[in-house]
């Protein structure tokens, strides 16, 4: 079976591969996995003072579709607010990359990773007193 050009493009030239400082209060980290194939995906987001996602990075150890799905996810969430990022559904990724049915779980993984990163960020910020982020940024 031939893979769709968009998958191949993201697989051969993955966007936003890397790591953000997971200890930063502006960074949320989501780590998710698919036990059926043993794939793991880390997706990180960085926000500004207005909860806009200014940067996103990922590292995926898995198949080409999982790499392409997470690469696309980081592209899509950059520039969005947290709430807007939550609107991304795995079906959007399936459509964009024309993923075959056996690879749909890869897109689910990417959606779960976005959610996990946002949950992590919100939990981190909820644990801090209000204004802590601004104070850190002003230093």
């Amino acid at each position, binding site marked *: 079976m031939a893979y769709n050009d968009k998958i191949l493009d993201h697989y051969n030239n993955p966007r936003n591969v890397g790591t953000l400082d997971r200890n930063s209060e502006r960074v949320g980290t989501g*780590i*998710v*996995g*698919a*036990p*059926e*194939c*043993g*794939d*793991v995906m*880390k997706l990180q987001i960085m926000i500004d003072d207005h909860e806009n996602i200014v940067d996103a990075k990922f*590292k995926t*150890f898995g198949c080409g579709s999982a790499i392409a799905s997470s690469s696309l996810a980081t592209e899509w969430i950059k520039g969005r607010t947290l709430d807007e990022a939550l609107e991304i559904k795995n079906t959007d990724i399936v459509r964009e990359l024309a993923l075959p049915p056996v690879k749909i779980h890869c897109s689910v993984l990417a959606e779960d990773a976005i959610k996990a990163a946002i949950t992590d960020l919100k939990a981190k910020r909820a644990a801090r007193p209000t204004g802590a982020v601004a104070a850190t940024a002003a230093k």
Partner: protein
Amino acid sequence: MPAQQQNQKSPPAKCTACRQPMSSPLFCDNCHCLHPADGSSHFELLSLTPTFDLDLALLRHQYLQVSRGIHPDYHGSGAEGDMSVHLSAQLNEAHRVLADPVLRAEYLLELHGGPAATGDKSVLAGVLTDTLELRERIADAKAGADPAALQECHAQIERRHATALAQIATLARQLPGADELRARLRATLNSMKYYQKLRAEL
């Protein structure tokens, strides 16, 4: 052999064709006719008691014994031949699953009502982060052509794998157990997948 008594199930029913007792539910020792086994468990196909602690020598013995009785070479063509092929495939699958401790635990969990892998993807705490870190270290070791670091990763994966296998065995021995036990076995089996994948790739 005491283990044989421990693991082997009581003799099945009589042959529907010749009314002689059968030592396997799949074929008659007397008239050699085949008996359908749809709905039978892997353990039943091999006349074994469903338990995690299988006597592997007995498993092998039963497998060979039943294989011989139902083998397509002895059952010609036509409906009898088709049934022989079908039963042999079932038997081979049963042996493949029961001979492997992880697959056996997975199967026993399924027999005891799950949770199934398709519905419950939970893993033990820290496993995903651990897997990711190991994979990053492997990637770094490979990029830096550092055989000592790679060797260390390999040793760590082996330890994780052995620990998970021991946990699976401990939990599978307690089946059916309570819901928490089965959920914990599910999570441990799910965690094992990550270490198996790592192991296969390194």
